[in-house]
């Protein structure tokens, strides 16, 4: 079945509702070709982590089916576990054990033993620049070191599919860049498939060959970053308004803009107005004229080439939530 083998991850119509009635997944479908890097992009609570939990055999879906590395996650969890490496949001490394001890135990759980395991641990420590730190207890590690160890733990048994759940959340910009370089290097490894979840648009854009944008428990759009951005013809025009606009006024404004200013996909979210135009610079005077006529005061105007942020806005119908406000930046 060459057709099936080519898919490292194949999830169809996953539905998961947690007790309390929270719908985490609402028809989630994801297909990842073997040997590629795939990004699940979406805000917190969109269902990315739940998807990863189901694909890594931690959680069971209420309905739907999924297979990883050719094995059904519900029927053959043991085979799936042997084929995958998991780097979850929480570190999970034993803080009182050294980095090396953590790696050795992890390897043993996969049945590795003896000198082969010792060699593998040293090799990974060296690769992730932890050779010295590997002798020290993990509780003394910096955030970046701990994250690198987490990735090393996920790789100890040379998995076919690696899951990286929010690999750079909480890292400072420098450590984040280092992690990006590391993931990019991993992507070059022969045959390794990576499924990455992130709420950083930039991260998905940079690392993933294909991206699925997730919103409210389902994929709203999927494609290569370039194709997704390319679908949005023309430039993005962003206008910052002085005062927030209510829903009714927003509808009137967007209608007026589409009709008289020659822009498409106009949308208003509070004080932020976005629209598309074939020639952004040329559209600005008309946009401003319409806004003035409608009595909306303007604070700032920018014209930009399309970004994933715009893709998200287009498909999820709202702006990408600023999850990281005041955090890592």
């Amino acid at each position, binding site marked *: 079945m060459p057709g099936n083998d080519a898919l490292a991850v194949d999830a169809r119509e996953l539905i998961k509702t947690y007790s309390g009635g929270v719908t985490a997944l609402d028809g989630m479908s994801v297909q990842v070709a073997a040997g590629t890097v795939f990004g699940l992009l979406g805000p917190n609570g969109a269902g990315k982590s739940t998807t990863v939990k189901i694909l890594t055999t931690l959680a069971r879906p209420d309905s739907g089916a999924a297979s990883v590395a050719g094995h059904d996650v519900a029927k053959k969890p043991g085979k799936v576990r042997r084929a995958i490496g998991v780097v979850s949001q929480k570190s999970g490394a034993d803080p009182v*054990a050294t980095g090396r001890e953590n790696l050795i135990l992890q390897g043993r*759980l996969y*049945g590795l033993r003896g000198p082969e395991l010792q060699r593998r641990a040293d090799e990974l420590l060296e690769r992730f620049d932890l050779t010295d730190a590997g002798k020290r207890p993990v509780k003394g590690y910096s955030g970046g070191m701990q994250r690198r160890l987490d990735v090393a733990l996920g790789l100890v048994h040379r998995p076919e599919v690696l899951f990286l759940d929010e690999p750079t959340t909480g890292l400072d910009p420098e450590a984040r860049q280092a992690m990006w370089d590391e993931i990019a290097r991993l992507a070059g490894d022969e045959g390794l498939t990576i499924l990455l979840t992130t709420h950083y648009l930039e991260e998905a854009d940079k690392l993933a060959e294909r991206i699925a944008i997730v919103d409210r428990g389902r994929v709203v759009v999927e494609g290569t970053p370039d194709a997704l951005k390319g679908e949005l013809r023309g430039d993005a025009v962003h206008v910052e308004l002085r005062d927030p606009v209510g829903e009714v006024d927003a509808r009137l404004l967007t209608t007026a803009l589409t009709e008289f200013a020659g822009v498409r996909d106009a949308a208003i979210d509070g004080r932020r107005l976005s629209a598309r135009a074939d020639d952004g610079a040329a559209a600005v005077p008309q946009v401003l004229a319409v806004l003035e006529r409608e009595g909306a005061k303007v604070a700032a105007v920018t014209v930009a080439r399309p970004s994933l942020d715009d893709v998200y806005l287009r498909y999820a119908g709202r702006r990408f939530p600023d999850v990281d406000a005041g955090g890592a930046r």
Partner: protein
Amino acid sequence: MSNSLTQTWFMTQRQLMALVRQPAFLVITLIQPVIWLFLFGNLFKKVTELPGFGSGSYLDYLVPGVVVMSALSSSMWAGMGTLEEIERGTLNRFLTTPVSRGAIMNGNVVQNALSVALQSVIIVVLGKLGGADYPGGAAGLIILVVAGVLLGTIFGAMSNAIGMTVRQRESIIGINTFLLLPLTFLSSAFMAPELMPSWMRHIADFNPVNWAIVAGRSAMAADPDWGDVLTRGGALLALAVAAVWLSTRTFRTYQRSV
């Protein structure tokens, strides 16, 4: 099978290492029984003179009580460790590996049993150094340690089950502080049952802590009452099996809630 045993050993080893690497915790768990032994030993020294107490030396009487009390008080915190592993993501990390689910739970049980056994041996040795006499010999002492281990298994497993279901440190702390002293004092740990008020004695009959003390103390006597040892020991074993079974069940519930 042998694979699952090896994995259980890996998980046990990991926990033992964590214990050894936290010397403060280790020292406290070792010092506390010493304090019980010598504090209570001196405080209540004269109770043996009460008519009807029976035993000659209070230290002889006290050693099994302290062994069992220590087994109880160190095991009932097991859930805190499990809670920490859940919060840290360690448990989920193991669950995505091929390690047998049983090995994860059994690692806790075996580690707890080994810790309790070591702690009990230390108390017995300290008692001996303090002048206690063990007329029942090695057999009696082994049964005492086994009784302590079984009791530790019961409360360790229950604590794990509580940790996995309520997922709140405060609940474990609350339950433990509420239970430790009543369970200890509603037993013959410090006072001969003949001198306890009769209602207390009846409650003590249903107290697993008292079962462990009675089993140990009977086995340590010069002329052991094997009937007492077998009934109490059997009840402890049954309860320990039930508690481990229950904690394995809550483990499955935890996996469903992930």
